[in-house]
């Protein structure tokens, strides 16, 4: 009886672990979107332009190299921290909106640095089975 019970519990745990792994591999779109948006911004904060470039739409990457991608960004402020707050699927398997909190520091005209935090909204689109930044 005890052996049977142990087997049942172990099987249950294995099933739960398998379930978690399946979510991790296939994932759900909301979690994937948050992870990708977070990872993209962490690359931007590190100024790892090659890594951040990989989240651009395939069509954009065909016509723009990483230097052109880099030139979209200025240097008037320093990004400090990013936190993906939530993702909302706008159109199943097509478009989604991701909200993030971005902390940055800027030097105002009086030369005094100012720390600031804003919410930013990003539109992501799904193509070729994955999500890409659209704006």
């Amino acid at each position, binding site marked *: 009886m005890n052996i049977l019970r142990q087997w049942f519990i172990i099987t249950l745990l294995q099933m739960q672990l398998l379930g978690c792994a399946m979510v991790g591999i296939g994932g759900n779109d909301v979690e994937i979107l948050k992870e990708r948006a977070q990872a993209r911004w962490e690359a931007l904060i590190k100024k790892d332009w090659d890594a951040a470039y990989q989240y651009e739409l395939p069509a954009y990457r065909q016509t723009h190299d990483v230097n*052109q991608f*880099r*030139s*979209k*960004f*200025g*240097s*008037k*402020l*320093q*990004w400090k921290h990013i936190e993906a707050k939530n993702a909302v699927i706008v159109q199943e398997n097509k478009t989604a909106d991701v909200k993030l909190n*971005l902390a*940055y520091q*800027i030097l*105002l*005209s*009086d030369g*005094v640095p*100012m720390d*600031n*935090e*804003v*919410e*930013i*909204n*990003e539109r992501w689109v799904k193509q070729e089975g994955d999500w890409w930044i659209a704006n």
Partner: protein
Amino acid sequence: MEKMKKNKLAIALTATLGLGAFASTAQAINISNEGVGEYAYIPYFSVTKGQSEVIKLINTSNLTVAVKVTFRRGTDSQEVRDFNVIMSPRDVWSGQIVPSATGAKFVTSDTTCTVPDKNQWVNEGKGAYSVEFDTTRFGNNVSLRSENVLTGFNSQLISKIQEGYVTVAVMGVSSISTDAVNTVPYLAKHVNGVPRSCSSIDWGFANAFASVKSQFSQAENVLSVQSSLIDPARASAIEIPVSNLANAFNDGQGAGFGINNISLSSVDSPNASNVSPAASDVFSDRDAKLYSATFDAPARALSTVFQSESIFGAFDTTGTAQSSWVVNFPTKKWLMDLKPAVQPFSDSIVQISQALTDEEEAVTVTSNKTEFSPFVAPVVPRLALPFEVNVITFSKLNPLSSALNTDAAQGYAKGWQQLGFPTAVAVTGTVNGGTSGGATATYTGMPVIGFEYNEDTGIAASTALRYGKNISAK
């Protein structure tokens, strides 16, 4: 709680203190050469592209300063939100306009006292508080004399406020010591980084307003205002050229405690109609003269400070470059509302003449060759700017994503443009004192402030538009 009661009581009693009186000289409103004044215009705010606009106030004095911050929609200057800020000596206060579901809101993490107090704002967490811009108070009602602009309006513009401008007014200053227990200066003073009791000041405004007012005297030139338009996701930012005005709200000689423009946060005051005295000091480069004159209305005096015969600046739409000009007529609402005279405005829609030049001096308005008679002169291009804040775009590119836009249709990808005001009605005033005292001073053009905005990939810059003044006295 006991302390709070005591504070409130003290606010009510402070009016009885012997606080002396300021002796000050009545002066006329003028552009501050030092960037420090009593009244400031931030000519443009925008959140149309997810930007945020930072506003920073610096109290440069050892006085406690009561400030009114007012946000106005760009279509017709109707107020969409205001509040009071009580700054202790040498205090710095900041906050930002950010996008919201209904258009825009103001957010601050600054601990400086505001009226209404932060407990009436929306708690955003992490010490930040916000207040939404109001889109319901005026609805589709445009300002009194702007009815004929209605064709230029669409409901989107006023149902979701994303563009406009900001005024910052010193309502009054207090020289009461920050150690004078339970006075407004005492309660506003930061101790260990936090004011002593903002809620008590809020209570005072609501329940002992006369006492609060009695602790302040008229405005002084103590406030510096800065603003930056920031696109955080693109790491780009521009400085917004702020017009800091000195001597805007000086009621007269010998003004003392209790004589000021302190108003409740629920009241749209002080504004252009409260400029006092109704006089201005304007320096004209053309004849190197200072024109000091008095006018029939406060807003007209303010108007002459900004009045220009023409404005000019540059544009570039070559390659990936884009340009826009922000053109703000800051006194239009108040002058259009004055009856019967409307000088310098003859209509709500401001007609603009254009003189355009590319970088090779080619021009659109004059002929550069001999002509047979009868010669038909080329038509001077004209724009019609319907709003109080207008964004002129070039080559139909709209880098600020403005809904208040009018395209210049300039014909050149790159060059410069001079805008004149052919329908402006000259403003007249009476020259103050001196050898010309009593003569009539005439100011031509329109009251206008603004800046040119230029961007290319990853780079954005702003510069104030250049103004040409034309004043004469007879």
